């Protein structure tokens, strides 16, 4: 896999997880995966395991924290929560994303002039 492409994918996943934790509050890894599955309406077919790599990356930047707790069916699980720094990052990245995607959308709408 090309390094740049994977970086882009990673970035997208990171952003989606941040947004999920921002919207739903603390969740464990399984919960995050389910939410992503749900909102992407199965469009985003992913190796669910990569969620954990992403979570680790986010933790290292102190954008999320992790804590051991008890899940709804009374099992030990790690719960992830977004931090203040994470919210700020989410804001910046969302703006970036929207700016870039609007540019891309506009670019993609352009019609070739020479065609009839």
């Amino acid at each position, binding site marked *: 896999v090309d390094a740049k492409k994977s*970086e882009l994918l*990673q*970035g997208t996943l*990171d*952003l989606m997880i941040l947004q999920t934790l921002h919207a739903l509050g603390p969740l464990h*890894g*399984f919960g995050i*995966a389910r939410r992503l599955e749900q909102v992407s309406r199965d469009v985003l077919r992913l*190796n*669910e*395991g*990569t969620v*954990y*790599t992403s979570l*680790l*990356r986010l*933790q*290292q*930047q*102190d954008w999320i924290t992790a804590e051991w707790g008890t*899940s709804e069916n009374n*099992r*030990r*699980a*790690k719960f992830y929560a977004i931090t203040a720094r994470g919210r700020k*990052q989410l804001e910046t*990245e969302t703006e970036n994303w929207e700016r870039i995607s609007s540019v891309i959308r506009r670019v993609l709408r352009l019609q070739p002039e020479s065609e009839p």
Partner: protein
Amino acid sequence: MNARGPSRLRAFAARLRGLVLGARHDKQFDDEVEEHLRLLADRFVAQGMSREEATRAARRQFGNTTTLQEDRRALQTLPSIESLWQDVRYATQALVRQRGFAVTAVLTLGLGIGLNASMFSIINAMLLRPLPLDRSDELVWIASTRMSSGGALDKLSYTDVIRISDVSALSHVTAYGDLTVTAVARQEAVRINGQAVVGDFFAVLGANVYRGRAIGQTDDDPAAHPAAVISFRLWERLFSGDDAAIGEPLRMNDQTFTVVGVAPRGFVGADVLKKVDVWVPAATAAQSDDDRRKMQERLWLIGVGRLAPGVNPDQATAALQARATAIAHDSPRSREGFTLQAVPLHGSPPGERKGAPAASAMLLGVTIAVLLIACANVANLSLVRGVARAPDIALRLALGASRTRILRHELAESVLLAMAGAGVALLLAHIVPALLRRLVASPIDVDFTPDLRVVGFTLAVSLLTVLVCGLIPALRTSSVAPARAINTQKGPAGQRRRLQRVFVTGQLALSFVLLVAAAVFLKSLVLARHVDVGFKPDGRVAVEFDLRALGYSGERSEAFVRTLLDRVRRVPAVREASLAHFIPLGGRTTIGTVTTRASSVSTDTGAVLNFVWPRFFETLDMAVLRGRAFAEADQIGSPAAAVVNQALATQLWPHRDAIGEELSLDGPGGPFVQVVGVVRNASLTGNARPAVYLPGRPTDTSLALLAWVDGDSAQSLRAVEREVRSLDARVAILRSDTLRHHIGERLEAERALSRVLGVFGAAALGLAAIGLYGLVAYTVVARRREVGVRVALGARAGDVLRLFVVDAGRLVVAGIVVGLPLAIGVTMVLEGSFFGVQIADPVAIGTVALVLAGVVVTAAYLPARRALRVDPAVALRSPD
């Protein structure tokens, strides 16, 4: 969402944490993944799958757990440390594959660095290592200067020490003065160095005695019975380590002391460079009231103080200076500009480090030269290896290895080499200082065992050497463009060969300098053997003995030496015999001030004094140029007669005959003695000091019996010794040897240095030869194709060999051209510092050049022969 700038630091910190928590993270992560898989499977079961199917589906959806775990590890720890082990393994394999290179590099490095580490451990032992004394960091030298000493460091008087002792910045003050004594106990006599000490010397230094008690304040009372503490060494030598030694008498010069204690093994007082065997209270150094007054005012003591708690040397200096000003104020003009200073106690006292610098600077220079040569070798080897590995590295670069990764491998190899080299070096550092000590026959008893400081130094030098010498070529290798390296294998080979040639030329130049220096020293020794010293030392023997410890009165001594001379002269092998206080050019002497009677201007001059018996000049065959030698009548001393050497005669009476002139050794007040003869100068160097010979008195000092003998001198020596013993078996014989050996001792330093230089020069030449061998071997490989063409076209073996040997010859010439001015410069410096050493002469230079050329041609010839084995058919088809 990429991590940049400060967030990288954050990630790095997290990784560091991860590195520490590694195992725990693994387990937690596994748990988390397992739980996730279970939940997924449960969900599939709820959707109607069988448990087995559900588990498989869950795994499918989750993805590869092993890759995930690996990704996680890569994220959570430091990959450079993770793969360090891998690098080390890879480097080890690489080095094992290139055994020849590895062994040569390690040995070369080991030798170069080992010699440096040895030198460092000597310096460390002498100057850097804290003394084996209690809380030695609190100890300071009390260094003094005064105006009339021209800023040079000076000693203290007994009165000074007493006045300094209540300076509150120092909790304790002591001092010592060096003495040379003849000590006699249990029928055996030795000449040893001693120290007269003030106050609680042992207590201040924090040294306990091994047996008995230390001397201290109470022994300072002139009325106290003279007590002595002897060294462990002397205790073993004179008393065979017997506990009964405590309380036994020890005669020193003409005083009897009682042994009260034995110092711990290895204790030498405050100055580690001294070999001291006895300590006595300073008060006992004075035997009469007159002596005592002199002793109290004479500047002969070296002060040592212990800093009061919480005081640093600067504060102590300030306090001492205030006291110095007070002392200068109360004292005569001679103490003008008197200053005192507290200097941390390491090595010798600040004023006593004369003689050593020239020799130690030379030794240091020599070791650095050897290190440079070794360094050039490693660089050369690395270059050669770089060429061999260029295709390999290029291939790896082409396959996507990063340059950093390749450099890391090179670095790992370098570090491994450095470690191995340091190992060899430390082994050498363990052995060499002891060998050096034997080589220079040093009397200094210092423990040279390498300590942590030496290990640290060695590792640092090794790493630095390898990084500088090994990594720069590696950088160049890895900068080769892959395509070029794979296609042609040439790369910047020509450039590299030039660099190699520069290295080898430099090595040869340095070896040349070292060898010329060694040759020059050797020549000075050969010359010293043949130089005309003004008398004939061959066939003469000398026996030094001491009567003072026997309690002989003046008359009995007189009778003793008279009888002895009679008897010795009757020994069949003895042609002539006489006595003197000092063996001419034997190293011990006394200096007097000579004043002439009839002069308005001051004609004081320093002269070497010797007190001799009749037939002294005849025994040594020292020519009497004018007047006469001493006769029996002169011994009685009326009128008093003196014989002077030519140097004194020309200095004091340049235009007159010296015979009949009068001179005094006690100032213008006399008594005056008449010059009855002028004799040839006695000197090792050709520029003789003025000398005065006076009729001998037997009681003042030890005596030397000189005899001119026929045949085997060892037998004659035994015969002479027998005569001495037969007169009185208790006589202390200090040394008996041929006159050559007695004089030769003077040249011990030069001899030792020439040996050291010879060894180092040979090591340097050996290293340079290895370097050259490597260069030629490499050239042979690089020019394989050319050789193939030549052989195919009909070149003969001789032509091919000449190709390489002539090339090596050019390097020798270049090396000598570069080295010659250096060698001349170095020998010029040596000429100024060592006896008999002359500026490099054509013979020395020619000899060294021949040796160098011989070694180089051999080093070139051996690998060049391999070129002959090249099969033209193979060489021409090879990709080179």
